C-alpha cells in the first residue's frame, strides 16, 4: 500500500469516526414522552414561571387539547434575579421579559386577570367579563405581597433618600434598593432586615440581602460604620435546623446581630423608625436603611373561590392540594403549581421546576385513562449567597433533609465559589429552559 492510499483510508476512517460520534451525541438526547390525543379543555391560571412552563409541556404532550392561559401581566419577571439587582450586580432589565415570549404556539392566551373562579361550575370569569369553561384547571397564580399590612408603609416611600427598600416588589424596586444600599454602605448607620410571619417565597432572600450588605460595606472599608440587625419572625434564622445553625455561625462571624420573634408591624418614614411586634410588646427601632418584606397571601380571587384550605393558613389562603400529587383534595380536576400551593415547603422557582413533571404526569395520565405515578417530595433549593463570589447551595425536602444534587461534590453547608457560579451563570439559563418546558 503506497502512502497515498493509506492517506485516503485514513480520511475515510476519520469521516466515519466523526459520523459515529455525531450519532452517539444524538442518542444521548432526552427521549420525548409519547403524545396523547384529546379534546380536553385545559385552563392555566397565571403565566408566570409555573404557568408558562406547564403550558409548554402540555402543548408538547397533548394533541388536540384546547389550552387556555390567563394572565393580565404583560411582563414576565425572573424573580431569582431581584437579589442580584438589589446588590448592584445586575440592572433592572436583567429580570424583565415579556409574558408572551415564553408561551407556546397553538394555545389561547387571554391577557386579563381572573375575576372569579368557580370550581363547582368548572368556569373562570375574567375581569373583562369573558367566561372560560374548563375540564381541567391548573392554578399557577403565584402570590400577593400584602404591603398594606405594614402600617404607615407605602411603596412610594422607597429610595436612597428615605433608606427604605422593598426589592420584593419588582425589578425597578430592586434597582432602587441598590441605590439605597449603596448610599447606606457609604455613609454608615443602622440597617434593619427581616422577614414576615406568613409563608413566603424564597425564605433565603432576606438572609442574602443581609449578607450582601455586610460584604459590600466590608469591600468599601466601611464595615465599622455599619450596624446590621436581622429580625427573625421565629426563634431561628432558617426553618431547616442544620441550615439555621450554619447561618447563625456565619452571622456571628460577621458580627450581624439577630433578634428573635420580631415581626415588622409599622414604618414611620419621617422619623425613620420601624416598629416590630414581639411577644413582649411593640419595639421601635431607628434605622438608616430598612428592607421591607411584607406578609404574603394567595390572591383574593383564589381565596374567594373555595379552593383554599379551610383549617390551615386561614389568614393566607393557599389552596388545598395533596402534598405528593399536587392535585386538589376536593376538586379532582384542579391542580396547583408554584407559590399558590398549600404545602409546607417550597415557594421557589426550584420547586416550580419539580412541580412540573408531577402535574404533567397526573394530568396526561388521567386523560390517557391511566393513573399518574410521579410524586413531589417537597424539594426546594436556595443558592444562599453569603458574599459576592460565594454561596451555599442548600437543597432540602418536606422532612428538612438536605438533598444535595451533587452529593460528595458540592457540600451544601460550605461557602463555595462553584455555588456562586451556579447562581450567577447557570440559574437563569436553567430557569429559561424550564419555562420552555425543556428542563
Amino acid at each position, binding site marked *: 500500500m503506497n502512502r497515498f492510499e493509506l492517506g485516503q483510508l*485514513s*480520511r475515510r476512517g476519520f469521516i466515519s469516526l466523526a459520523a459515529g460520534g455525531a450519532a452517539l*451525541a444524538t442518542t444521548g438526547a432526552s427521549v420525548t414522552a409519547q403524545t396523547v390525543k384529546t379534546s380536553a379543555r385545559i385552563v392555566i391560571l397565571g403565566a408566570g414561571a409555573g404557568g408558562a412552563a406547564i403550558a409548554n409541556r402540555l402543548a408538547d404532550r397533548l394533541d388536540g387539547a384546547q389550552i387556555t392561559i390567563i394572565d393580565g401581566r404583560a411582563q414576565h419577571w425572573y424573580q431569582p434575579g431581584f437579589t442580584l439587582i438589589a446588590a448592584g450586580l445586575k440592572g433592572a432589565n436583567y429580570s424583565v421579559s415579556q409574558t408572551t415570549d415564553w408561551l407556546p404556539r397553538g394555545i389561547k392566551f387571554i391577557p386579563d386577570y381572573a375575576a372569579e373562579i368557580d370550581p363547582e361550575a368548572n368556569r373562570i370569569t375574567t375581569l373583562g367579563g369573558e367566561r372560560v369553561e374548563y375540564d381541567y384547571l391548573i392554578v399557577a397564580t403565584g402570590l400577593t405581597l400584602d404591603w398594606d399590612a405594614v402600617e404607615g408603609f407605602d411603596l412610594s416611600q422607597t429610595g436612597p433618600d428615605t433608606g427604605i427598600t422593598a426589592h420584593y416588589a419588582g425589578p425597578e424596586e430592586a434597582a432602587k434598593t441598590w441605590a439605597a444600599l449603596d448610599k447606606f454602605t457609604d455613609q454608615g448607620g443602622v440597617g434593619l432586615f427581616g422577614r414576615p410571619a406568613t409563608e413566603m417565597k424564597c425564605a433565603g432572600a432576606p438572609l442574602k440581602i443581609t449578607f450582601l450588605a455586610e460584604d459590600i460595606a466590608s469591600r468599601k472599608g466601611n464595615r465599622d460604620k455599619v450596624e446590621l440587625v436581622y429580625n427573625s419572625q421565629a426563634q431561628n434564622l432558617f426553618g431547616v435546623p442544620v441550615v439555621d445553625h450554619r447561618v447563625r455561625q456565619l452571622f456571628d462571624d460577621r458580627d450581624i446581630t439577630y433578634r428573635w420573634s420580631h415581626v415588622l408591624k409599622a414604618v414611620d418614614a419621617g422619623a425613620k423608625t420601624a416598629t416590630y411586634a414581639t411577644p413582649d410588646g411593640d419595639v421601635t427601632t431607628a434605622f438608616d436603611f430598612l428592607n421591607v418584606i411584607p406578609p404574603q397571601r394567595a390572591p383574593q380571587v383564589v381565596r374567594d373561590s373555595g379552593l383554599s384550605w379551610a383549617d390551615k393558613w386561614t389568614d393566607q389562603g393557599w389552596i388545598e392540594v395533596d402534598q405528593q400529587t399536587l392535585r386538589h383534595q376536593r376538586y379532582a380536576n384542579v391542580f396547583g403549581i408554584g407559590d399558590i400551593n398549600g404545602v409546607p415547603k417550597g415557594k421557589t422557582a426550584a420547586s416550580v421546576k419539580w412541580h412540573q413533571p408531577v402535574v404533567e404526569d397526573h394530568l396526561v395520565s388521567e386523560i390517557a385513562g391511566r393513573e399518574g405515578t410521579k410524586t413531589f417530595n417537597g424539594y426546594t433549593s436556595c443558592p444562599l449567597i453569603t458574599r459576592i463570589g460565594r454561596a451555599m447551595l442548600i437543597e432540602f425536602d418536606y422532612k428538612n433533609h438536605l438533598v444535595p444534587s451533587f452529593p460528595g461534590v458540592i457540600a451544601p453547608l460550605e461557602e*463555595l*465559589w462553584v455555588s456562586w457560579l451556579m447562581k450567577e*451563570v447557570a440559574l437563569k439559563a*436553567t430557569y429559561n429552559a424550564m419555562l420552555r418546558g*425543556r*428542563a
Partner: protein
Amino acid sequence: MEEMTFGTILAVFEEMFGAGLFWAMVVVAAVITVGYIYVLIRDREMSMRKFLLAQLSMPIGGIAAVWFVLWITRSGMQHMGGPIDALLLLGIFGAGAVGFAILVYVAQSLVRGKQVDN
C-alpha cells in the same frame, strides 16, 4: 437537579449564551478540532517544533480562561472555598490551555504548511 439529561444540558447552554452564539462556539470548536486532525493526517506526523510553541502557549490559554470566568462571575481567587472550587479552577485552566495549544498548533500548520523539523 431533577432531570439531568443531555437534552437538558444543551437547553441550559443555549439559554446561557443564546442559541446562535452557543452553536457558533460549538462549530468553532469542532472546526478547530477537525483542523487539528486534518493537519495530523496531512502531515502524517506531529511536528515537534510546532508542538513546542503550542506547549509554550498553554499557560496563556489557561490563564485567559480562568481570568475570563472570574471576570464574568465578578469573583476572585479569594472566593475559592473548598476542594471542588480548586478542581473546577484547574479544569478551566486545563481546558483553556489545551484548547489554545491545539489552536496554536493548527494555526502554525495551516499558515506555514508542512515543515521538516531538521
